[in-house]
């Protein structure tokens, strides 16, 4: 090749032709060499890290609970917002609701609610009783209970469930083996105690109880009856928590000294300012029964009936409602139990304006911004809970230790601390970079290894990846109910049993008491009394 090159299309192939034809082939060799070097380096880092961290590499596969044997007969107490969700998780929804999901799916192929519901495991249960004090909700509950085939409108319905106007009649019935309690918090204790006495198994929503005194009574009743009790913290089924426990047990973040957990919401619904049903009136609602546990009775108030979480007479505020989810998540991982002391403060800072349509007659009592500190001097750490119902800033959960910190959401990320003692040499040698995670667990990822690519982490953190477990999307509430049903069948203890529930209940009650009495509340673990 001199000044000009011409493609002359000759027929003879000479040495010059071969050189020109193959001139760029060595580039492939360079690519192979570079790829080999890089892969080997990544592999060595990953392998060394894996050896250092010693985390199990198996993924948590979706294993359906076993539900063979006789069909269990369940009664639902309370078919409001949460009751509806629990029934759906148990496999029952009103045909009109199913029709709505079906229509949504027809309009938008990404809307998987309908197919997810159809694919949800059959728990081999029937809903034989429905109890709700509001006629409209009770009717909806009955239509869900009869929908045994998960049919949409015009589908074939199964046998009708019985409506009970008082839960005590339901507990007296021979047609009921177990109850799901999704009533307001002020009823949880009495209903659970009565159910336990009647020998009915209980799945109860949080908060565990309304008051401190009730916590002991519930525990005694459940323990003496031998029923299977499960408190509704579906977070128990979250895979990343299970992996987090392993990481903590293997001391990956060293000596834990501070835990920060948060709640952030920013909508009237999230702040419990729910819609008031237009058909609710003194004829359609049994207000007297609703108020039965209240020492001081109130006149009929649709606002209090639907937005009961906003008043201390019925609800437990951020402590019982949302701190408890965080507490139970951390208790599942650390098993730290009841705090030695609790202090709390907060107020009604955002939802305080009648003029803005936040309220009809009464402004809420329970804070919408609230913070609590739980102390564990025996275990040398504090738990800091911080909540607002008027900002969506996502803060997640962080467990802080001397050697590293663990960030927890749907995925789990562990960072080494730059001043860590355990990782000192590894950080100095460059094997560990404190800026990069030393361990990442993304649920549903085909393989578990220590280093996930940046792309994967970005997508996963935004919920764009791996929303499926074992190839299917699974609702944790469904798993939690399924676990309870299996425990009843096998006579075993579910994950959020009465002992776990009692710890949650006492912690929440301490938080409420600390706030309402504006003082630090202490727990004497020997006498099991609040001081």
């Amino acid at each position, binding site marked *: 090749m*001199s000044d000009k*090159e011409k493609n002359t299309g000759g*027929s003879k192939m000479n040495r010059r*032709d071969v050189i020109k034809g193959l001139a760029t082939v060595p580039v492939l060799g360079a690519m192979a060499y570079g*790829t080999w070097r890089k892969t080997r380096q990544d592999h060595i880092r990953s392998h060394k890290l894996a050896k250092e961290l010693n985390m199990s590499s198996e993924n948590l596969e979706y294993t359906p609970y076993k539900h063979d044997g006789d069909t269990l007969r369940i009664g639902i107490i309370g078919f409001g917002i949460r009751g509806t969700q629990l029934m759906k998780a148990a496999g029952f929804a009103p045909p009109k609701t199913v029709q709505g999901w079906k229509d949504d799916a027809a309009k938008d192929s990404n809307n998987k609610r309908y197919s997810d519901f159809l694919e949800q495991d059959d728990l081999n249960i029937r809903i034989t009783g429905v109890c709700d004090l509001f006629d409209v909700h009770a009717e909806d509950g009955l239509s869900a209970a009869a929908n045994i085939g998960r049919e949409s409108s015009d589908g074939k319905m199964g046998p009708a469930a019985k409506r009970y106007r008082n839960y005590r009649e339901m507990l007296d019935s021979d047609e009921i083996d177990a109850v799901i309690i999704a009533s307001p918090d002020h009823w949880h204790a009495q209903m659970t105690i009565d159910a336990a006495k009647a020998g009915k198994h209980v799945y109860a929503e949080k908060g565990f109880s309304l008051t401190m005194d009730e916590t002991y009574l519930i525990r005694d009743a459940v323990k003496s009856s031998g029923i299977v009790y499960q408190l509704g913290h579906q977070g128990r089924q979250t895979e990343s928590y299970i992996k987090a426990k392993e990481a903590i047990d293997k001391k990956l973040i060293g000596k834990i000294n501070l835990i920060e957990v948060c709640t952030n919401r920013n909508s009237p619904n999230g702040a419990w300012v729910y819609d008031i049903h237009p058909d609710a009136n003194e004829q359609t609602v049994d207000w007297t029964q609703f108020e039965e546990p209240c020492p001081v009775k109130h006149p009929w108030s649709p606002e209090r009936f639907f937005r009961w979480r906003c008043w201390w007479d019925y609800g437990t505020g951020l402590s019982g409602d949302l701190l408890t989810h965080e507490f139970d998540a951390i208790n599942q991982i650390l098993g730290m139990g009841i705090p030695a002391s609790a202090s709390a403060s907060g107020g009604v800072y955002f939802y305080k304006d009648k003029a803005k349509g936040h309220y009809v007659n009464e402004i809420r009592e329970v804070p919408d911004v609230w913070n609590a500190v739980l102390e564990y001097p025996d275990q040398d750490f504090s738990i800091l809970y911080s909540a607002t119902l008027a900002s969506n800033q996502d803060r997640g959960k962080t467990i802080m230790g001397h050697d590293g910190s663990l960030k927890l959401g749907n995925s789990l990320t562990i960072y080494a601390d730059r001043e860590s003692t355990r990782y000192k040499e590894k950080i100095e040698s460059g094997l560990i970079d404190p800026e990069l995670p030393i361990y990442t667990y993304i649920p549903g990822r*085909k*393989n578990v290894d220590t280093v996930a690519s940046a792309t994967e982490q970005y*997508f996963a953190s935004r919920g764009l990846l791996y929303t499926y477990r074992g190839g299917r999307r699974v609702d944790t509430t469904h798993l939690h109910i399924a676990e309870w049903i299996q425990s009843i069948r096998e006579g075993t203890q579910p994950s959020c049993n009465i002992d776990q529930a009692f710890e949650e209940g006492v912690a929440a009650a301490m938080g409420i008491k600390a706030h309402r009495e504006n003082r630090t509340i202490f727990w004497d673990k020997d006498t099991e009394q609040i001081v």
Partner: protein
Amino acid sequence: MKDITYSKWQLWSLVILRVAIGWHLLYEGIVKLLNPNWSSLGYLMDSKGLFEGLFHAMAGNAVVLNVMDFINVWGLILIGAGLIVGLFTRVAAISGIILLAFYYLSHPAIIGVSYAMPTEGSYLWVNKNLIELLTLWVVILFPTWKIIGMDRFLFNKK
């Protein structure tokens, strides 16, 4: 086809450009092949713009998703290798343009959208996918593979 004559500098610059694009595509393919967790799911779900619905539908169908994953991995590898060694280069370059067009259409740099994956630069309408696509078009218009590349053996046989 009419023969094109190049200066030495023109020829080697075009060859280097061709090889560089090939290198990029080949390595993208190899990385995906070596990562057992790789899937186009996240990228497709992150699509925005006019064809968002189409890409979401692809992600929503397990069979289509598997086909897309396969095409991406092996498409990138074969296109990249083809451009580097200059074998079936024209087919490789056209395929590369089609693949890049998919990337561009699923993640267009249009006003008012942002993606889960942050970019390392700033783009308005024109982004690196589009530039790489246009560059491949130039590569097609200047068929250096007939001189430097294994296609030389095929073209010179006739």
